[in-house]
């Protein structure tokens, strides 16, 4: 189905159109969320939240951007919200662990993450890189994940971030510099000695 009729059908509450949109886009949404949260179950929860949001608010979608861009925007926002919630929980767990015998924030720290879409020999390096990406500021993280992990062009990323292509290039340059710094620190700490 073409994007315009699909949008019309979605706005009329057509269940088949919703299923078709899901079939066409679920891998994009899931993989974007997976890049942020590095956990399959959490990424599925975010994917669920994204499609529920799409179903509820598609009537108010005016089509000023493409449906895919809009979907990516919702995914990015939901993923960042999830990370904030997780950070809050972690702080609270650390605080409560001061008064109880529970282990605290370590429980909420994601364990070693093996991305299912990465070749086996690259899994360890990819895990190190995802940990470094996690430390980037939100905008740099989003620009990096959308271009390097999702493979979007700079123009598409600019559309999702609602900014200019120049700004995206600047974000990517700063993100790469920061990643190099993080990785250099990791190398000195764990690889070199």
């Amino acid at each position, binding site marked *: 189905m073409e994007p315009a009729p699909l949008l019309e059908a979605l706005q009329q509450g057509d*269940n088949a159109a919703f*299923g078709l949109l*899901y079939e066409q886009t*679920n*891998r*994009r949404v*899931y*993989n974007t969320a*997976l890049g942020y949260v590095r956990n*399959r179950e959490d*990424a*599925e929860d975010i*994917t*669920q939240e994204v*499609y*529920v949001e799409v*179903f509820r608010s598609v009537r108010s979608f005016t089509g000023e951007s493409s449906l895919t861009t809009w979907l990516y925007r919702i995914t990015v926002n939901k993923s960042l919200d999830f990370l904030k919630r997780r950070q809050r929980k972690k702080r609270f767990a650390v605080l409560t662990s001061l008064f109880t015998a529970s282990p605290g924030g370590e429980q909420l720290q994601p364990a070693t993450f093996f*991305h*299912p*879409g*990465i*070749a086996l020999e*690259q899994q360890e*390096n*990819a895990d*190190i*890189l995802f940990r*470094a990406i996690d430390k980037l500021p939100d905008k740099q993280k989003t620009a990096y994940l959308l271009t*390097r*992990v999702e493979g979007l062009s700079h123009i598409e990323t600019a559309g999702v971030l609602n900014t200019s292509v120049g700004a995206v290039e600047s974000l990517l340059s700063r993100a*790469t510099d920061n*990643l*190099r710094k993080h*990785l*250099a620190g990791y*190398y*000195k700490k764990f*690889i*070199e000695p």
Partner: protein
Amino acid sequence: MKPDQETWINTVLSSLDDLERTSPNPFLLAKIRHKLAADNGMVLVPKRTVWLAAATFALLTLLNWSLLNRPATASATTTQASIKAFVEDMQLYPTVPQLYDTWNGPNY
């Protein structure tokens, strides 16, 4: 920066180059449909209505509280004064002689 370190960093940075998109749980769509169906049965009240109701309730509580805490003497005096004025206006004096304290008020 040492050449080994530079090589390692470049290897790590390129580890996502051949990443392939993966699919979520095949039952996720069914789960989403179930959630949407469950949510449709629920009646959602707009936030504005909830705030209006809460504000109205708070206002009513405040008014009741202020009425209950108003000094009783002031209202009693007002009531007595209005009864006296009403009695005088309507000339509602007792026809049957009644015993009054001679030193405390008129003896009709």
